[in-house]
């Protein structure tokens, strides 16, 4: 491997004209996968704080019963926008950013397959999110019918003002951006792997993103179609979702969740990939069950298309539909269980150390599993007649998104930032950030299980007195969690600017080079990498399959 690296250094030194352009224009016109990855990540982090600020408004209003700070309609705007910003502005772009940085590095490609389209998909994302955010300043406020945008509510003149067409066009832009990103990722993985790397040699992160990219291409057009029908119902007198014109409001929900369920896996499959990358490094062991991980990811992706109506158990479906969607949903527990068992087996008999990326990854496995348990509980249709649309489900999906997706994004930041920048982050502050986050996230979301079971519906700005205590505790957890994330911002900035001053090695983490290709490159990474593909790929994870 070292021969390859030397040659690479030599190459980088000889071609100064291929370095980044100077000034602002570098970022606007760049086609470099690292620059674009950085922009995605910075944008996602910014949106994480915007969406987080909205969550703080929600938790502040719910701190005590009664009306304190915001009008109910604005509260509904906050829940709606918090979800849209976090899903489409923070989590999805963050994973695309990671894909941009890591996929070419991990498969030995010089860049993404379609670099100009890569630039365009980033800037369309920015346009889409800005368009959505602009509705906050419009007459009648931002959309407030929930992120699911259910008709007839979202079409009602007294509920949503001028925001709807802007939200719809924003979804179109975000959809096109995601699809372009997905095409790029698929093209890169299929065509630009180092000749030595077969599909079943690819790191799990690459595999999970490949499968995610197919999900994106399959479902983003469905969402775009659904919101376009909202648009024509509102402005062009169609009646897709209007019973008075022969339509059906529940039809929208079927279409939406046909998108929406794969969408939630779009946010979790790359998470599995990162966890499967980080845990083996710190356990100093190959990933357990590589092949079954790939198959489990594929199965989860397939199942995600045939379970959508479990979001709609109480909408009034025929009994055959209720039972089918219950059984199909329960099956998801099997491949998901395989993943959790595999991670546990990867740790088993390892030689573990607990640097910040590993801490976040372990917390991910434990807390994602908790979200999985409540998911299994909700798959039981008759019991979901109680859980549905209560804080129990709010707790469930936040467990699968915050201490799962978000924690893994944090883990990825700590794991790869030293490689990208050549600087080590401050481990003490990193660990402080971890412990504050993991404790406060549970104070924030665990009591919401109690609230839901005790009968508190979701999406309400005020509540009965018996819900007061747990709401206050949840809010306190929320404020601490929110404030703790400022530490992450500090660490990221500090690391980029030099961190501890310690010069990191090429491998950064002990023996990381045995696990994946990027650790065989120099630290910090040169602007161009793998201009000559590597001659071999580390295949520790697939030793026996060869």
């Amino acid at each position, binding site marked *: 491997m070292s021969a390859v690296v030397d040659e690479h250094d030599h190459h980088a030194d000889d071609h100064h004209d291929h370095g980044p352009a100077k000034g602002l224009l570098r970022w606007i016109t760049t086609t470099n996968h690292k620059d674009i990855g950085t922009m995605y990540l910075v944008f996602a982090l910014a949106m994480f704080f915007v969406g987080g600020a909205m969550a703080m408004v929600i938790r502040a209003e719910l701190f005590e019963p009664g009306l304190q700070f915001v009008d109910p309609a604005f509260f509904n705007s906050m829940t709606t926008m918090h979800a849209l910003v976090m899903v489409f502005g923070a989590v999805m772009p963050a994973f695309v950013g990671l894909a941009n940085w890591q996929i070419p590095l991990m498969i030995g490609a010089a860049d993404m397959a379609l670099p100009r389209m890569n630039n365009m998909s980033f800037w369309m994302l920015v346009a889409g999110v800005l368009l959505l955010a602009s509705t906050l300043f419009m007459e009648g406020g931002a959309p407030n*019918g929930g992120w699911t945008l259910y008709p007839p509510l979202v079409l009602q003149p007294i509920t949503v003002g001028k925001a709807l067409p802007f939200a719809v066009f924003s979804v179109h832009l975000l959809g096109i951006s995601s699809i372009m990103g997905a095409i790029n990722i698929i093209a890169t993985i299929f065509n630009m792997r180092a000749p030595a790397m077969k599909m079943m040699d690819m790191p799990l992160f690459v595999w999970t993103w490949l499968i995610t990219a197919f999900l994106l291409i399959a479902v983003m057009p469905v969402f775009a179609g659904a919101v376009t029908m909202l648009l024509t119902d509102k402005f062009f007198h169609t009646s897709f979702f209007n019973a008075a014109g022969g339509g059906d409001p529940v039809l929208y929900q079927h279409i939406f969740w046909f998108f929406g369920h794969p969408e939630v896996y779009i946010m979790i499959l790359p998470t599995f990939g990162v966890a499967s990358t980080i845990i083996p490094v710190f356990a100093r062991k190959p990933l357990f069950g590589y092949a079954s991980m790939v198959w489990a990811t594929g199965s989860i992706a397939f199942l995600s298309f045939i379970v959508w109506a479990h979001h709609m158990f109480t*909408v009034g479906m025929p009994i055959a539909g209720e039972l089918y969607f219950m059984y199909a949903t329960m099956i998801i527990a099997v491949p998901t*269980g395989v993943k959790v068992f595999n991670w546990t087996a990867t740790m088993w008999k390892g030689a573990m150390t607990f640097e910040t990326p590993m801490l976040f990854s372990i917390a991910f496995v434990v807390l994602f599993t908790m979200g999985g348990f409540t998911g299994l509980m909700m798959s039981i249709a008759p019991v979901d*007649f109680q859980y549905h649309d209560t804080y129990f489900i709010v707790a469930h999906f936040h467990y699968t998104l915050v201490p799962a997706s978000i924690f893994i994004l944090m883990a990825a930041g700590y794991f790869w930032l030293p490689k990208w920048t050549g600087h080590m982050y401050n481990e003490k502050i990193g660990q402080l950030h971890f412990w504050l986050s993991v404790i406060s996230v549970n104070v924030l979301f665990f009591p919401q299980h109690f609230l839901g079971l005790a009968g508190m519906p979701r999406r309400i700005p005020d509540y009965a007195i018996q819900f007061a205590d747990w709401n206050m505790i949840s809010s306190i957890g929320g404020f601490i969690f929110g404030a703790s994330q400022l530490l992450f911002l500090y660490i990221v900035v500090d690391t980029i600017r030099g961190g501890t001053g310690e010069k990191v090695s090429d491998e950064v983490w002990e023996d990381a080079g045995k696990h994946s290709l990027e650790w065989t490159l120099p630290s910090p990474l040169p602007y161009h990498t793998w201009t000559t593909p590597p001659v071999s790929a580390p295949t520790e994870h697939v030793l026996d399959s060869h």
Partner: protein
Amino acid sequence: MALGLGAAQADYTLNLMKGVTKVSNDIYDLHMLILWICVAIGIGVFGAMFYSIYHHRKSKGHVAAQFHENTTVEIIWTIIPTLILVGMAIPATKTMLELNDIEKSDMTIQVTGRQWYWDYKYLDSDIHFESHLDEASERVHRTVGADPRSVPHYLLNVDKPLVIPVKKKVRFVLTSADVIHSWWVPDLGWKKDANPGFINEAWTSVDKAGTYRGQCTELCGRDHGFMPIVVIALEQPDYDAWVIKTLEQQKQKPDLSDQSSQQLMAHGESVYLKNCVGCHQINGAGVPGLIPALTGSAIATGKWESLDGFLRAGTSKMPKFDKLNGKEFAELMTYVRNNLGNKVGDELQPKQTALPDDDD
């Protein structure tokens, strides 16, 4: 937990409530079964993980093994969860079928969700009424700094509760007049969406007389949090007496006698809080960009006859209020024209505003 627990008058629970019907008890049992299965799996998996985290660490000098697959183990941990799932699916299917069995009901109630109250119609008798959030909660939740703890059953109380007999199979047909709502009383064990233009069915049979409270559970606009449900289950003789009394009250004609201006204003406020406040707000300011203000409104403060016609006819955005009687029109208009920042200075009496057919 000391944070005002004493102030929480209502039942305080951490777990799902058992409820008061056979179905709700079955659901509770299912919930507990799956919860315990999850706890057991959790103890196993997390136990192994934390054992490993404690013992298999580099700082203890543990050397990493290099195994990375084991087909037998992988097959076992695929098959065992599958079997557990089958074990869960059997009781779940039974309960689902039970929940779905709306046959052979003793009576039927039509539930219509509206922004933001429920409308109940007993299809076997002529009973028909609206059920709104109670006035005390209505005032407090709209006022910054008001104390919710001063209101009994804050946000879970209504002016007219739904009354049903115990141990009778009551069938519900649910629909909506505007957007999607969802009717949920946790003690009955289920919720069901009320969809505009479509009818859903559900049923209950309550074992124990008592008062059971719930809320709308589908986001239905700005006052989604403020349309509670109260069900009172009565023993059969009490229920029969309630039916007779309610039918009598329904037949009573409105009292069209003159009122003092204080009376008009006080009654008018009640009518306003029930019918208008959701959109036009407690101070009549409306919502900028969405809902017009009543304060200073030309329609509200113009000729009362045209305001009267406007209210009865409605607009594309505002429902028509021809359901109000002449007495209520007089009270409401007097209130709107002389409060909420308006000072027309007139006083409308029920006899002025009553239409010939208003006495029904």
